[in-house]
Structures are given as structure tokens and as C-alpha cells.
């Protein structure tokens, strides 16, 4: 019983990480119609960037986040036209091509990372890792490390910024227009290629930053990617494909379910258990938790 509050806190923490991963993933799907199966590898590459930068510079990794974002966002922006090219070939099914292409990309990143970074697990040392808070209430008590709390604050801040960007700026208006009706967006003057490249850049930058955070809170290794890809996919499907507003609830739900299972089940089965719950929910409501997906 005393594990419950701890599991809840861990779940909220995981959920917060899943939110930011899944929002980017969902945006890319909405605007580019690409299910990016390389998302976990962008996270992994970001985590290694954070790891080595911290090792070389001894700067607090939290402070490195903006730099990691800028570098990876630029990389994503420059990389996007290649994906666009792959998808706009006249033969074949674009959605499938996107899946296969990004899957291959992920495999390649993972292989290269194993060659250059090795097979070992690391973690990124942070000043925040030492401190912790003691929370008490209603007869329960639990401790939360300050690095996790910082992670939660970071995740909520990123979510807030993205929300603002999408809902209250003209760039966001263009992004939503593209996602909802590409031709009409073009008629309004929205530049599909440029906007898509920006969206992909923002998504890669955020994924990489999140990788650094995951490296601080949990751990990082060349093989860490696929778990996060799977969860990003789960969250987006649970939220309803393309229904961005459903992402936070779906992410917290999956995060909490996962951390509860981690207590009671062999870690090898957690993913299966989470999948079973996802599947059951989809049986009842095929278009996601809120029935608003596609």
C-alpha cells in the first residue's frame, strides 16, 4: 500500500514525459501525415548529446537544454525535405512509405549509436539529482527527487509553450490549417514545405531535449529508443489519432498505468500489460479515449 503514492508520482512524471513526446509525434502526423517511427532515436541522440556535453563541459544539463533544442531543431528542419521527397513520390502509399522510411532511419541511428557510443547504459549527472522533497497528505507520504520535479515542470512548460504557439500565433494557425485541409491552407498562403520543415524541426528539437531529461531522470543507452517510440504511438492512438487535445489525458493515463504495473509485474511484461489495456480501450472506443480521433 505504501508503494501507491510513489507509483502515482512516478506515473505522473512518466506521463509528463510522454505528453511532450506525443505532442510532437502527433503534430508531425497531422501536418506531414508521417507516423515517425524514429522518434525514439531522436530522443536517444538528444540524450547522448546531453551526456557527452555534460561530461566535457561539466555544465548543469538543465542549462544545456536550449542549446540541444536549437541544434536538433536545425537538424530536423534541414532533414525534413528528404522525408517530403520520399513521401511525394508518385508511386505507392505515402503513409506506408513514411512508416518504412522512418523505421529504417531509426534502425540506422540505433546501429550508428551502438557503434560510436557503445552498448552501455549511462545517466546524466545533474545537481538536481541529489535533492528531494518529502510530500505528505491524507495518511500517505512519498519522496520525490528534485530532478523529477524539475522534469515535470519542464514538461508542463513545453506543453504550455506549444499550446500557446498553436492556438495564439499565426504560425500555429498555419500549422492547424495545414493539418485540417492542406489545399485550403495553400489557398490562404500557407507554405506547406516551409511550415512542415518548421514543425519537424520543433518536434526533433523537443524530442532531443526530452532525451536529455530522460537521461537525467532514468538512464540512456543506444537501445533506449524503441520503448519511447512505442509509448508515443500508444499515447497518440489512445488520445485519438490527430486529436491533440486528448494527448495529456492519454499520456498521464498510460504513464500511471505503466508505473503501477512496474511495481507489481516483472518489467518484461509491463509493456504487454499496457498494450492489453490500450487494446481494450480501443475495442470500446475505436477512435481513442474521447472518440475524436480519425
Amino acid at each position, binding site marked *: 500500500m505504501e508503494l501507491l503514492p510513489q507509483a502515482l508520482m512516478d506515473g505522473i512524471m512518466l506521463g509528463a514525459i510522454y505528453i511532450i513526446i506525443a505532442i510532437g509525434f502527433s503534430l508531425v502526423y497531422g501536418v506531414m501525415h508521417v507516423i515517425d517511427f524514429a522518434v525514439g532515436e531522436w530522443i536517444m541522440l538528444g540524450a547522448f548529446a546531453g551526456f557527452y556535453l555534460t561530461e566535457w563541459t561539466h555544465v548543469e544539463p538543465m542549462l544545456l537544454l536550449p542549446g540541444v533544442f536549437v541544434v536538433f531543431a536545425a537538424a530536423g528542419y534541414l532533414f525534413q525535405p528528404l522525408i517530403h521527397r520520399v513521401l511525394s513520390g508518385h508511386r505507392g502509399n505515402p503513409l506506408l512509405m513514411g512508416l518504412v522510411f522512418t523505421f529504417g532511419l531509426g534502425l540506422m541511428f540505433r546501429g550508428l549509436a551502438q557503434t560510436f557510443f557503445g552498448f552501455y547504459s549511462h545517466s546524466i549527472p545533474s545537481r538536481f539529482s541529489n535533492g528531494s522533497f518529502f510530500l505528505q497528505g491524507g495518511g500517505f507520504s512519498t519522496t520525490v527527487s528534485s530532478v523529477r520535479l524539475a522534469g515535470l515542470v519542464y514538461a508542463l512548460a513545453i506543453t504550455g509553450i506549444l499550446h500557446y504557439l498553436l492556438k495564439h500565433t*499565426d504560425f500555429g*494557425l*498555419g500549422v*492547424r*490549417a495545414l493539418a*485540417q*485541409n492542406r*489545399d*485550403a*491552407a*495553400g*489557398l*490562404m*498562403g*500557407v*507554405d*506547406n*514545405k516551409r511550415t512542415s520543415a518548421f514543425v519537424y524541426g520543433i518536434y526533433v528539437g523537443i524530442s532531443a531535449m526530452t532525451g536529455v531529461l530522460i537521461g537525467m531522470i532514468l538512464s540512456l543507452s543506444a537501445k533506449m529508443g524503441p520503448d519511447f517510440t512505442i509509448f508515443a504511438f500508444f499515447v497518440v492512438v489512445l488520445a485519438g489519432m490527430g486529436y491533440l487535445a486528448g494527448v495529456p489525458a492519454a499520456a498521464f493515463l498510460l504513464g500511471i498505468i505503466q508505473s503501477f504495473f512496474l511495481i507489481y509485474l516483472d518489467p518484461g511484461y509491463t509493456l504487454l500489460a499496457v498494450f492489453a489495456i490500450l487494446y481494450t480501450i480501443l475495442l470500446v472506443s475505436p477512435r481513442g479515449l474521447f472518440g475524436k480521433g480519425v
Partner: protein
Amino acid sequence: MNVLEARGVSASYGDTQVLREISFTVKKGLLVALLGANGAGKTTTLKSICGLVRPSAGTVRYDGRVISGLPVHKVAELGITLVPEGRQLFPKMTVEENLVAGSYLKKAKEKRKENLDRAYAVFPRLAERRTQMAETLSGGEQQMVAIGRGLMQSPDLIMFDEPSLGLSPLLVEEVFRVMRMLHEQGLTIFLVEQNVRQTLRIADYCYVMENGRIVQEGNGRDLESDPRVREAYLGF
């Protein structure tokens, strides 16, 4: 002065040729109409002007500059607006967000507030429904949003693709009233319609299209008295 000029424009979807060397001009400040039966190629004509379809031959010029082959957003930047067939709204945006999306470009952004007021003045019904999601609007209301969104672009040339399609007679009147008003304000209009009788009445010049070709042209009165047009489109 010719604002819009198409010369020998052809277009295909895959192997099927839909436009066969069509030529037409739209002069500044005029309301020019393009008539024709279902499947004649009217929508394709508009799409090849605004960059949604790339012509396989021929050129489209706007103010003397070749625009065929430009991507759609570049054509929009030149001040050409299409109010597309079937409304093509942003379904998950509110009425107001749809209208504001029309002022995405820099030039229109500067007049956003003024144009929004104008759109609500033209269609007071939209003001009542500004926070309603576009997908839940009635067909007529959606058409008002589509027209309003086009006006938000502060266009120099506005093209309408069957704006009266599926509307009640009262609303058809309303849409024609708005087009007449825009025409009187000096806007250049290129109108695709199946509502031939009303269109002939407001158009300065008309083209008639059949199977991807322009088969006839003239001013409204000439066409109205033309036996072939009477038979094919007016039913008497």
C-alpha cells in the same frame, strides 16, 4: 487591362486530359463568368490558375507575369483568392478562426480587424456564430464562411467556384447580392456557376465550356439570346 490571361492551357489527371488548350482573359474590375455542365472542367480551370493543378501546356499570366507552375501559396501572395467548390473550411476551427486564417499573409494581416468587421457586416449571421466549430455549421453558413474567408485575404482577384451550390433560393439571392456588391466596389471577379440565368445577368463577359474546351464566349445578353445556350443551359 488584362489582369488574368490564360493561353492554350491544358491539364490532365493522370492519363485523362481534362483541359484542352483553353484561352480566356479577365479584365481588371470586370466580373467574368465561366459556365458549363458537370465535368466540363471548370473547377480544374480554377485550380490551374491558383496552383493546385499544374498545367501540362500553355501559360497563365497575372498582371503580365507567368504564374502557371507557381506553388499555390505563391499565387495567393500575388492577391489571387479562390473560394473553392465544396467550401473547404478548416473543420476543427471556429468560424472566427476560419476567417482569421484568411488573413494569414502579411498583406492581409495588416487589415485583419477591418476585414473581419467587413465580413461580419456582409454576413451578420456569422457574427452570431463566431465561436461555433465550422464542421457543425449548416451548408449555407459554411458557404458564408468560405466567402468571408476569401474576403479576409484582401484579394485583387477573387474566384468563386459554384458559390450558390446547394443553397436555398433565398441564400442564392444573398450570395449573388454579395457578388454584385463586390463587383460594384471594383473587385475583379472570376465566377464559375451553374446558375446560368442569374450569372448571365450579373456578368460582364462569359465563357462557356464543354468537355475541356471553351466553346463560346460573349457578353451576358448575347449569350442569353443565343439559341444553343438557351437550349443547353436555360431549358427553353
